[in-house]
């Protein structure tokens, strides 16, 4: 089969693709998921969360520009539907989540206080990691959010371990391990796929395919660029999903949960999405055209998509605007909190290295 020579941008119409050609059709497979039928209240909540992520990340970018945030800072702008759609289907306190370094959006979707996230970004003592983690290293064990990992692909093995713990404890929980199209080429991902399927671990592997691993497009880095097929040789079924549409994401997650909770072992979701900003704040993103980004924003923006659903559901422009205003206020407060909180006490340098004393 000929390989496409141009990057396959996320198509708003990608939806869930059929099972991979050539797969063993005698094996049971998950059903082709349908778009989630959201109530008006659910749609409003999706919109609220996605706008919160968008505005929060824009503010983080601004604070970075002011020198208040240092180091690396990877923004989630454009990918909001993925985290929001998936998290909305999970059971808080029961299911666990782990991701890579593009983690702020996920944490917001999990209901973690924007103030402590922003304060971590600015390296303050009130930050969720007490200022010692930074943008890439944030955790909330309370919310079963296990990070926040800076090594590309590490969270896939760690996530399989969280899935292992769910199964070992027989607690009915499922782990969702998010990783990018770049991480999808790491060796440990496949070691983990192998063991996860071998041991039927309750885990949903989610590839957030935002088309570029830093500056390298998927088809320049991946011999099989249809990433949802990457689990097939381990007998892990994959679904390709329009990651710009929160209802498609939620629908696919429901199907994935059904599969995993049915004791079938792991499943792989490829979320076709797009990041509007550079890989990190210091990435000029010269590997793609301004027109490409603009076309995505114009045609496939996940927030505009939900807005459309809201208007169809009879929500007024004024109501939407009120949400926008409220989110701006929350984000402005988070920024104020993050700027005005003190830096960590110097003695914190020495705390938390080890738990016990020896």
């Amino acid at each position, binding site marked *: 089969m000929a390989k496409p020579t141009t990057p396959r941008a996320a198509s708003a119409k990608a939806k869930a693709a059929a099972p991979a050609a050539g797969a063993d059709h005698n094996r049971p497979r998950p059903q082709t998921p349908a778009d989630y039928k959201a109530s008006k209240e659910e749609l409003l909540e999706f919109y609220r969360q996605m706008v919160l992520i968008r505005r929060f990340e*824009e*503010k983080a*970018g601004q*604070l970075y520009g*002011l*020198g208040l945030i*240092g*180091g690396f800072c990877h923004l989630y702008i454009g990918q909001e539907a993925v985290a929001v759609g998936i998290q909305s289907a999970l059971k808080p306190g029961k299911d666990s989540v*782990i991701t890579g370094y593009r983690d702020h959006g996920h944490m917001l979707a999990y209901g973690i206080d924007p103030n402590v996230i922003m304060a971590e970004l*600015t*390296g*303050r003592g009130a930050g*969720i*990691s007490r*200022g010692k983690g930074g943008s890439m290293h944030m*955790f909330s064990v309370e919310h079963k959010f*296990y*990070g*926040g990992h800076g*090594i590309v692909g*590490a969270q896939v*093995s*760690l996530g*399989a*371990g*969280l*899935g*292992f*713990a*769910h199964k*070992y*404890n027989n607690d009915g929980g499922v782990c969702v391990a998010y990783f990018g199209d770049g991480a999808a080429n790491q060796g*440990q991902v496949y*070691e*983990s796929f*192998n*063991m996860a399927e*071998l041991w039927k671990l309750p885990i949903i592997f989610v590839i957030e395919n935002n088309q570029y691993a830093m500056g390298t497009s998927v088809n320049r880095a991946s011999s099989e660029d249809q990433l949802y097929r990457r689990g097939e040789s381990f007998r892990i079924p994959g679904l390709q999903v329009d990651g710009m549409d929160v209802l498609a994401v939620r629908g696919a997650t429901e199907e994935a949960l059904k599969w995993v909770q049915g004791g079938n072992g792991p499943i792989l979701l490829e979320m076709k999405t797009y990041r509007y900003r550079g890989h990190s*704040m*210091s990435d000029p993103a*010269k590997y793609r055209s*301004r027109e490409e980004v603009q076309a995505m924003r114009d045609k496939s923006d996940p927030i505009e998509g939900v807005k459309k659903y809201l208007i169809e559901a009879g929500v007024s422009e004024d109501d939407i605007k009120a949400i926008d205003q409220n989110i701006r*206020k929350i*984000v402005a407060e988070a*920024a*104020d909190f993050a700027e005005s909180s*003190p*830096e*960590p*006490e*110097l*003695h914190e340098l*020495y*705390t*938390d*290295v*080890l738990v*016990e*004393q*020896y």
Partner: protein
Amino acid sequence: MGIVIKMPALSPTMEEGTLAKWLVKEGDEVKSGDILAEIETDKATMEFEAVDEGKIGKIMIAEGTEGVKVGTVIAEMAGEGGEAAAPAPKAEAPAKTEAAPEAPRKAESGTSKLASEAKAVMADPDLPAGTEFVKTTVREALRDAMAEEMRRDARVFVMGEEVAEYQGAYKVTQGLLDEFGDKRVIDTPITEYGFAGIGTGAAMGGLRPVIEFMTFNFAMQAIDHIINSAAKTNYMSGGQMRCPIVFRGPNGAASRVGAQHSQNYGPWYASVPGLIVIAPYDAADAKGLLKAAIRSTDPVVFLENELLYGRSFDVPRVDDYVLPIGKARIMRPGKDVTLVSYSIGVGLALDAAETLAGEGIDAEVIDLRTLRPLDTATVLESLKKTNRLVVVEEGWPTCSIASEIAAVVMEQGFDDLDAPVLRVTNEDVPLPYAANLEKAALIDAARVVAAARKVCYK
């Protein structure tokens, strides 16, 4: 009040840049995400986006201006109005911490323990009078430790290559599958990176994994999880996320297995904050310290030695023999010279001490047992008495535990030294296969004796 737009920092190191081009002009309406300008940093030309909605008021810095400092106001914007508009960004640098540089709160610090006083660490438990000692191999002692901890705590499980049905590549896990079943004794594929990560994730998820590497040479495939995932997480999470895991397996030279299967990773792991590193010598320590390692809330690297697995030692027959981590053991008291070692080197140091005794040199032998945190207090205390010190290490000399001991002794025990500290280590080469070359590369008791004589000027 309008919003000021400042020259952004667009990389971790940027201090100034060139305002290459304005893409908006005064009076333009912009919304968040619109590109305002192109800015050249030292590395690249970057696009600078609007964050807030509003109208561009006044452009203060013309395009083409070079050397614009980060934070300089480059334009003013009229906000959307109302309280919802973002507040004007503050120009001040992050608030300076005025707190005086107080002494670190040692009680909460693991690393501070590296220089801790002897009284801060626990002593070995006193054994009741008349305690029976049982000849036990190191292999059996390790197995007993795991079995006892698995009986005690349902969260403990063992995972690795050939640990279950094969009964352990070196038979260390013999019998565990029969007693505990395949839920808790788990054979893995040969994928060290993957299963080290799965173990680490399981520990984060609340379990107590014991991850066996068939040898620590293969753990190089997995070292990322040991260091980046296990060791750093508690710190990076501000103390929220624990990782109670034990990575164990044989370490150091075995017999004629060549360079890739023969090296001592003690110094590697001992250099990493956030890890506990244990390298026992005899069976009693192997048992008592492995039990302590499994109970520890911190990640532990537990370095065994294949050549010691089959050796028998006395192990006290007591119900729950748990030893303190971070405490060295005086294996043989003496007054003329201190021989410091760990793992298989301890046996050579004891042999050397016997020979030296015949020559009238009374050597004290210290087994470090834990390489991190290092019990420097016991070493310095011994030095006060003997004034002479030799470190014996089955490993390379460069950046070794021996180097570390030498540095600590120089820094903290300089006045007690009557002779330079000598290091007896392997030769600084990959371990060769040929029998004669391998023998020449590795330490032996004769070299320890020679070094001890030298520091005693005999």
